[in-house]
Structures are given as structure tokens and as C-alpha cells.
């Protein structure tokens, strides 16, 4: 697995757009540090579950509980950091 943060950022954005059916949005529209929920991209609680599925399905990374989920699923950067942290070890 390529753990280059730039590659991961790009990939995750593409997965999010596809799995969450975000028509009319390109990877460039999603900022790396912007919040994914509510005021940022405007995702909701169901999307949170979809993001957990993406993390497990494509990166084999589990999010064990809501507390971790809240921290990890803040932005593209926090998701990438978590993957690198889990996989880099």
C-alpha cells in the first residue's frame, strides 16, 4: 500500500465522491483541512458510517468506536494521518 500522504489524500477524496454519490464535486473541491461534517462538506451521520466502511474496505483500517471516529473523521488530513499511523507501524 502506498502510504504517501499526497496519494492517500487524492485516493480518499475519490472514494468519498464515489461512495457518497457526491455528484458535481471534484477532488479539488474538497479541502484537506476543511471539516467534512455539517459546515464543511456537509456530510451527516450516515456518511460517517460510510466513511468507516471506506476506511475498512480500502485500507483495512478499523475505527473501533465513536470516540476514535470523531477524531479521525474530522477532515481528509485526519483520515490520512490515521491510516499512516495504523498502517505504518
Amino acid at each position, binding site marked *: 500500500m502506498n502510504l504517501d500522504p499526497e496519494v492517500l489524500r487524492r485516493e480518499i477524496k475519490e472514494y468519498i465522491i464515489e461512495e*457518497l454519490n457526491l455528484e458535481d464535486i471534484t477532488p479539488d473541491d474538497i479541502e484537506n483541512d476543511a471539516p467534512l461534517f455539517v459546515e464543511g462538506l456537509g456530510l451527516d451521520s450516515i456518511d460517517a458510517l460510510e466513511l468507516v466502511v471506506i476506511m475498512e474496505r480500502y485500507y483495512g483500517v478499523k475505527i473501533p468506536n465513536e470516540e476514535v471516529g470523531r477524531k479521525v473523521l474530522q477532515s481528509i488530513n485526519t483520515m490520512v494521518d490515521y491510516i499512516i499511523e495504523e498502517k505504518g507501524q
Partner: protein
Amino acid sequence: MRIISSALISHQDTYKKEAFSEVISQETYLESVLHPEYKDIIPPMERRRMTDAVKMGLACTKACLDNFSEITPGAIIVGTSMGSSAHTLKFLDSIITSNGGLISPTPFIQSTHNTIAGQISLFLKNNRYNNTHTQNSLSFEHALFDAYLLDREGVDHILFGSSDESENVLFDLFYYLRAKKHVKKGAGAAFFLTSKQENTDENIVVKSVEPNSNVVDTHSILSSFLDKNEKTMDDLDLILYSSYSNNIPEDLVAFPENKLVDYTSLCGDYFTNSGFAFGYAIDLLKHRPTVKSILVYNNLVETNLGLTLIEKH
């Protein structure tokens, strides 16, 4: 019960098309549903999870309320036979392929039959009565019946209708096994708005609706329906019918053929196509002066008979 607004999405050019009944025919039947541009109707973040059944329902809701923006529907009632069946299959697929791993929840959420009515309530921010009837070929008639009851109970501005999609194999298989005829696979949605207020000039009124299941003798049901409504066959200007076979239903053979319309030839076979017939009848009543009384005779499934009498006063 008076109908003041209607909207249809079908295998014909019917969405927001006034007097479509004068134009459409068997020849203008399209291979697939003529969907409106949902992008212009439903915001992207809301639209992205929606199935066709939901999108059609919402687009029809919006069209029904176009000229009545001040109205808050007193109830939302939907009839659907299969609901969002494509998502039901999608979720089954993902259970099989996931091998115990995590599964995306979206198709599960969308698969419940009341997603259509639920999304309409969310879309309109409507807190009122909300029900979904699923009784195969009589699902529309049951939604109409519920509206009819609510109207009698004093509820005004009831939004009711039906929606069924067909982007999957379920309906084909299901209907294929029941029908005794060549099946023309259809899909679509039809929604309507009621009012208690009488118009000064013309009113389209639902006189009576009767869904009947486990039927053995359609003839006696039809006669008693007409008796209850103090009608004879001669009082009817048109009968719109569907049949489980290729033939004109026995009950209707004595009726003048030029006053008989097989509505499945116009909209295709699907279990809520009597919703289309109902909308077609309303359009005809509005635009053809000589037509004042129409019976919708729904015998799409051999043991089910839906009878709906619609009139212009």
C-alpha cells in the same frame, strides 16, 4: 373529495404537461421512464442517496404544489408495491459479497417502503399524518382510499400518490409469474392534491374507490359498486382498464369499444399503474368537455379488483 392538482412521471411525456391525454397514445410510449431533470428539483446533498422511486415521488410532489405554495399538506400518503427494490437487491448483494465485513448502510435505509413518503415529509418539513400502503396491484387504490377516509375525517389538502421503479429484475420476475399476457414493463409515479373547497366552475371529484383482494367473482363486485354509486354502465363516458390477460375483461365486453381504454398500453405494466390511469382520467375530464364520468377498472392481477369512479361536476 376534490382533486385540485396532479403530476405524473411515466413512460410518456406527462410531467407538467397539461392536456397530455389528448396527445399520448400507444405509439408515443417510450422505452424507459421520461425523468425530469432532478438536478433542478432536488438539492444535490439530498438527491445523492435517493432511488428513482423516491426522486419520482419528490418531483411529482413539487409539481403538485407548484401553484399552491401556500398550502401545507394535511397528510402524505403513498402507495408502492415494490418500494425502492433496486436498493433492496443492492443491499442483499453487499451482504453476500462482504463476507462478514462492514456494509454500507445507505441501501438498507433506502430499501424500506416508506422511504418515499418519509423523504417527502423531510423535503416539505411536514409533521402531519404519513402512511405507506403496499398491497401489490392495489397499492395506489389503498393510498387513495386512505386519502378518501381522511377527507371524510375532515383533513384538508391531502397529498397522495404512488411510485414504483423498475430498474431491477424483481418486478419482471414477479409479474411474469402472475400475468397471463405479454408484459410491457413500465414504471412511474403519480401524485395528487385534494381540497375541501368547491370551485365555482368545474370540480374534479373522486366519487368512490374500492380495492378488492382475493376476488373470485369480479362481476358481482362491479355491479354492487355501480349500484352503491347509483350508476349504470351507460352513465360512464369512459372506462380505463387493465387486465391480467391479453383480452378485454369479461365484465366490460358489452361496453362500447370506443369508450374503452387499456391503460397499460399507454403506461406499461407495473403494480401502481392505476395511479397513472387516475391521473390520465383527471387530465381527460379537464380537457374533454364531453367526458364527465370515468371508471378505472384495475384487474392487473387476476384476484385483485380496484374500482375508482371519478367525475366532473
